[in-house]
């Protein structure tokens, strides 16, 4: 009973962290795009005359979303219409709880795991939750009784299914290297050193895999250059009929899913909570673990945003070509090479 309550506390903590980072990403997205385009960015929201580099804009956004009229189109399928954003956001948030924010530490006489949901199949759990998110997209498009929304939802479904295959193939090769599907074990495995000085992070062992994962992850989370399901500016997306906080939840989903895939990238390719040269233990070690993990996650998010503001959007057939004809064969090749390499390594 105590352990269940303890797990619940940790899950809530993980979800709250994720939501806060999502709010921060709203700010980062605006400011980063502004600075790299020689602009200033939103800086007008103020509280008692303080502007703090536009930091209050996410709060103003949330207030606006909450106070806007929540209009439901008269022909919409009401239950599905109301459920869709919840499904999208809910599975994304659950994915956060399976990330290894830290290892197992002993603090104040208790043994604590800093991973909220520990499972020997953690990688499959996160992948499954990510692919369940597509149901929200399809439901939103289908239930809003709008042809534009329906087509947007179908675009989203075919894109996400295409890239899920690439994502799973790429991740299976990295799981093959570590010999486990447990995210915590994978992070622990990366604590060793190659040749005595290079940390054996996934990015060193699987450089091609990291690139393929990053591409497939950007497509899976509907980030530009793969944001065809929503198409902010030109093409109409699956959430065209949504307004108010329901629309806000779709926006949040994007950010939360980005955090989840960045967390996966951190755990599997960037050494998770490991800091090279530091043996982390105890309460202070736990704090450093969580901070190191979050710092790496922010780094990946920063890179994803930079890519977003660098590349134009793909056309849909180009997108599917890239997924099925280029990334999938490459990730299969990567998998074959990995299996061969691991086999030779074990023979040694």
């Amino acid at each position, binding site marked *: 009973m105590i352990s269940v309550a303890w797990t619940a506390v940790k899950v809530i903590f993980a979800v709250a962290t994720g939501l806060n980072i999502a709010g921060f990403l709203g700010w980062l997205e605006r400011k*980063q795009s*502004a*600075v*790299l*385009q*020689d*602009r*200033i960015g939103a800086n007008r929201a103020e509280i008692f005359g303080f502007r703090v580099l536009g930091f209050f804009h996410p709060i103003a956004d949330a207030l606006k979303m909450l106070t806007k009229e929540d209009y439901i189109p008269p022909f919409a399928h009401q239950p599905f219409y109301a459920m869709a954003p919840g499904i999208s956001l809910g599975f994304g948030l659950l994915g956060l709880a399976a990330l290894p924010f830290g290892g197992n530490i002993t603090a104040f006489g208790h043994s604590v795991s800093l991973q909220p949901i520990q499972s020997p199949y953690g990688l499959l759990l996160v992948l499954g939750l990510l692919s369940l998110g597509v149901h929200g997209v399809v439901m939103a498009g289908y239930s809003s009784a709008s042809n534009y929304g329906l087509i947007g939802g179908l675009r989203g479904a075919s894109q996400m299914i295409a890239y899920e295959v690439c994502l799973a193939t790429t991740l299976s090769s990295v799981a093959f290297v570590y010999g486990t599907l447990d995210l915590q074990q994978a992070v622990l495995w990366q604590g060793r050193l190659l040749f005595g000085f290079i940390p054996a992070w996934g990015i060193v062992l699987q450089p091609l895999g990291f*690139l393929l994962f990053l591409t497939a992850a950007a497509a899976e989370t509907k980030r530009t250059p793969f944001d065809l399901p929503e198409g902010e500016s030109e093409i109409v997306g699956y959430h065209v009929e949504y307004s108010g906080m329901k629309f806000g939840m779709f926006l949040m989903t994007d950010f939360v899913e980005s955090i989840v895939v960045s967390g996966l990238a951190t755990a599997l390719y960037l050494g998770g909570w490991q800091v090279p040269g530091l043996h982390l233990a105890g309460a202070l070690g736990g704090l450093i673990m969580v901070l190191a993990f979050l710092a790496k996650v922010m780094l990946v998010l920063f890179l994803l945003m*930079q*890519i977003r*503001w*660098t*590349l134009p959007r793909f056309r849909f057939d180009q997108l599917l070509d*890239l997924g099925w004809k280029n990334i999938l064969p490459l990730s299969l090749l990567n998998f074959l090479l990995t299996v061969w390499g691991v086999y030779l390594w074990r023979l040694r």
Partner: protein
Amino acid sequence: MAIKIKEVTRPPRNFQGQIFIWEVWLGLLVTFRHLFVNLWRHTLKAMGIKTEPGSVTIQYPEDPAVLGRRARTRHRLLKREDGTPRCTACLLCETICPAKCIRIVAEDSPDVIIEKRAKSFSIDLGLCVFCGYCAEACPVDAIHMDSSDVAITAYDRKDMIWNMAELLEGKKSPSIAQ
């Protein structure tokens, strides 16, 4: 003028472009350069060191709007040396105005050489399309569109109609910067 045809050759589809990754890297180099150079300039500015500006943004209500030298802005009536309006109420501007926003009432001028002058001259700036025909049509150089005033605002449509005194001397709009 004869029509010329310019041949544009498509860039070749080579391996480097087709694997994306190299081109993406080049693009990232450009955006990262902009990001870090601008961040560096913002940091220097925050520390009070003079550098190139980190952005091209003009923060409009606080900073004045930057207008081209030939920009057509709010009308301005000009005066003679003795301070009387140059307008001779010929009605050319009222006639040419496509938006029909100029109203002129003429009267006799005490000066027999001038003959006519405007008794009242009003422009409805809410109707004006800023085409500049009035300034072009004026034979006596009495109306210009060079007041550099673009923030013409009012709380009422009536207040958008400016009379002769206001057009001669200028009027303070309820400012958005307040």
